[in-house]
């Protein structure tokens, strides 16, 4: 069986994450890369331990399920951060026009 290549795996995961995050990638890049590196290294280690027969299939499955939870956590986190940033941008935009709008209509609408 061909050995897993850590750089190749990480490259594939980063490419997929970058495509999925599109315009949000520059902001999410540092956090996503750090997490994907941890996930990739862990998957490599689990695969190596299984190949060396130091862990059995049931043990490897539990380990990989924790890696999957971590990958899902990365997605949930990126979505949550995007939502928070969007809300913050809207609130800053509203605050920027508050004085103009309120003075124009004569009462505190915004």
């Amino acid at each position: 069986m061909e050995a897993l290549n850590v750089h190749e795996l990480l490259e594939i995961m980063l490419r997929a994450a970058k495509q999925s995050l599109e315009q949000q990638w520059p902001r999410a890049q540092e956090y996503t890369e750090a997490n994907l590196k941890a996930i990739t290294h862990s998957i490599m280690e689990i695969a190596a331990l299984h190949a060396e027969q130091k862990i059995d299939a049931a043990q490897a499955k539990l380990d990989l399920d924790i890696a999957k939870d971590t990958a899902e956590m990365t997605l949930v986190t990126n979505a949550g951060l995007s939502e928070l940033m969007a809300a913050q941008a809207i609130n800053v935009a509203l605050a920027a026009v508050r004085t103009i709008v309120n003075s124009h209509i004569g009462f505190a609408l915004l």
Partner: protein
Amino acid sequence: MKPRASKKNYYFSILAIALVLLTACTSVNTATYDSQTDQTVTTLQLKTDGLMSSVKANLNTPAAAYKNYAQQYQAILLQLHVLITRNEALPYNKTTVDQLNLLSSSIEKFQKRHELGFSDARELIALQQLVDAQFRSILTVQLAKPHAS
């Protein structure tokens, strides 16, 4: 005296309405930073990291047996459950609730894995990195939340 008091009440009413409008209409609702969640997540990370490091230090000795750690798992999972309940009660907080549920699920899996027995430190290091990444994710979102005004 009476008309003057009535005028004062009128201005108070206007002021109250303006304040309500100001607070209700000027911002998009979003989850706010919760210091208790921040502190509890940090405490839980210390406990979980401590447990994993202890298993690693005792590896391949009777001290690393699951039964010696069962109570610690129970305490961590209980504290996490209480934290999930608190976060479910906070408005617009789905992201943090989802994150805490994933963390809880991972710690339960680690507990099951421990029951099967560890023999190699590399496996523990790999799992510790994954769980650390999860804690980091939860704190990243918590620290990005605006503080309540």
